[in-house]
């Protein structure tokens, strides 16, 4: 088990930087998800951790020791690939035993360790199978067992779930999380799927353009995104354009593009006349037929109602501005064409400067 430290890590291909000046520390036993759209540098970062890609500058420490110049086969880092990358010519047993054989372990110990590793992923009955005789989920577990059996200091997971179908993906999320906790191994999980990252990770690292945008727990990032990019990447948000009317004593008045004026508390660093965007999560909105005192509210017309079982997803039109609200099914009786009030507390929502 180990803690990992990335220090000003930079990777350049010619003039373009795939990763620039990335610093991050990962605690022992922690599961960190590197999250971002494709091309954000998350995979390059993982490749550098594994040793498949050299750093242009910066350093990577594992337990305080630099591994920058250690070749991949001496790093003792387990990797699970998106394609699983099982050895097609070897049986499940031999796939899992591979790393132990490379360590010149004796046959008896190898047998025992492979058994335990396969038990760990509930595949001990299939040790004689070949990879192509197995389903995607099973191959995924073999890949996990193969990476864990060498008792690596760090585990790297590169989009491990994206080749699985939706149901299995959800199940494997929790399975991976459970195994990771049981083994207690420091893990870096690369994904472009925010719900996957939120479900699995202790901390999320949101990346874009080769750098870190925000680091925090799923709750931190969802509730207090640092900028518009993070807001829109993690979950859904209604984005309302407007400008600041006044900002003092912890209260900011914003005039929306529709002309409505709303109030926001605890938003700092804004001055009058600045163009801003207001981000509102759909589930923060409530819908009523009558105005509610003390809340922000906008009057509009319901133009879409999608029943989703546990929730209802509602589309609203406020003088041409479209909003989405997600409400509990039992709240109010609403139908298309109704006029309604959209309410949210003045403490909810996040305000950003509009740089566009």
């Amino acid at each position, binding site marked *: 088990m180990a803690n990992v430290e990335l220090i000003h890590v930079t990777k350049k291909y010619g003039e373009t930087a795939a990763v620039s000046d990335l610093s991050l520390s990962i605690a022992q036993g922690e599961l960190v998800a590197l999250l971002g759209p494709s091309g954000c540098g998350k995979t390059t970062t993982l490749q550098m951790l594994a040793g498949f890609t050299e750093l242009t500058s910066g350093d990577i420490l594992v337990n305080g020791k630099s591994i920058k110049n250690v*070749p*991949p*086969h001496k790093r*003792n*880092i387990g990797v699970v*690939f998106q394609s699983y990358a*099982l*050895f097609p010519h070897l049986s499940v047993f031999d796939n899992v035993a591979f790393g132990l054989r490379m360590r010149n372990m004796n046959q008896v110990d190898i047998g025992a360790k492979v058994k335990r590793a396969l038990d760990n992923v509930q595949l001990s009955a299939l040790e004689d199978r070949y990879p192509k005789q197995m389903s995607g989920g099973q191959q995924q577990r073999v890949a996990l067992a*193969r990476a864990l059996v*060498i008792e690596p200091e760090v585990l790297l997971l590169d989009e491990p779930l994206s080749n699985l179908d939706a149901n299995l993906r959800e199940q494997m999320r929790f399975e991976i999380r459970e195994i990771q906790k049981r083994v207690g191994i420091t893990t870096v999980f690369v994904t472009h799927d925010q719900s996957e990252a939120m479900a699995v990770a202790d901390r999320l690292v949101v990346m874009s353009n080769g750098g870190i945008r925000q680091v925090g727990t799923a709750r931190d990032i969802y509730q207090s995104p640092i900028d518009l990019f993070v807001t829109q990447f993690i979950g859904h948000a209604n984005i309302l354009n407007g400008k600041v009317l006044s900002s003092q004593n912890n209260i900011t008045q914003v005039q929306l593009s529709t002309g409505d004026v709303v109030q926001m508390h605890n938003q700092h660093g804004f001055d009058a006349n600045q163009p801003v965007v207001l981000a509102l999560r759909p589930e923060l909105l409530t819908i009523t037929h009558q105005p509610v005192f003390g809340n922000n509210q906008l009057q509009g017309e319901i133009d879409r109602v999608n029943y989703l079982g546990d929730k209802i997803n509602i589309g609203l039109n406020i003088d041409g501005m479209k909003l989405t609200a997600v409400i509990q099914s039992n709240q109010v009786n609403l139908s298309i064409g109704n006029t309604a009030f959209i309410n949210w507390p003045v403490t909810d929502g996040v305000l950003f400067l509009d740089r566009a």
Partner: protein
Amino acid sequence: MITTTVQRWLGAFALLVCIFSVSPVLVIVLESFTATDYITFPPQGYSFKWYLEFAKRSEFIDSAIVSLVVALVSCLISTLIGTLVAIAIDRKTFFGKSFIQALFMSPLSLPGLIFGLALLQFLAGNGLPRNIYTLTIAHIVLTTPFAIRFISVSMLGIDPNVEKAAKSLGANGLRTFWHVTLPLIRPGIAASLVFIFILSFDEVAASLFISSPNAMTLPVRIFVYIDQNYDPLVTSVSSLLVLAAAIALSIIEKTVGMGRLFGLK
């Protein structure tokens, strides 16, 4: 969906192709049993005299040995070079890579006769002998492009992450190659060995120029012989070659299986 009628027509067509390719061979084999002193079809009278004649002609046996040795050595060395070049081209990036690639493929672009003539000029101009060594080198140069192609195709079928996985599990470059890459390109290596052996054994055009009385391949010997004689000796030699090929193929089929050898199963 392929209907039964279409299937039948396809079957008939396949049969026709088989007959078309096998019948000339069959004609040669039948002719070799003729009792006449000239080649004729259908053969007249039956005898083994042209096989006995072959046993007496040591130059044909010598040539068969030359051909075997040249084919064996060149299929081994070409496949070795081909494997190394294919790995370098597919897995590494280095300065002048496309130039190297083009260089290794260039023998394919020359007709065999031109290549043979050029080689003859080169050997004569530099006072080098025409013997079994230079003959073998010529065959290696001619067949290496095919080896590179065969191995490259198998390399393309390997997920590069498989090699990375091996490294992350503690295998250095050599052990990764030995335990992962090599087993996965084995079908390509087998195909390369078999195909290049046949290619080298059959080669006439270039060998014609660089064969010499002390090192002449069997196809060249047959070619030179029928240029001057028209007796059925060449048919008995050819029939023995067909027999040898049939035996070799059936041994491969029985032991390894053709499908497995070429990675089809």
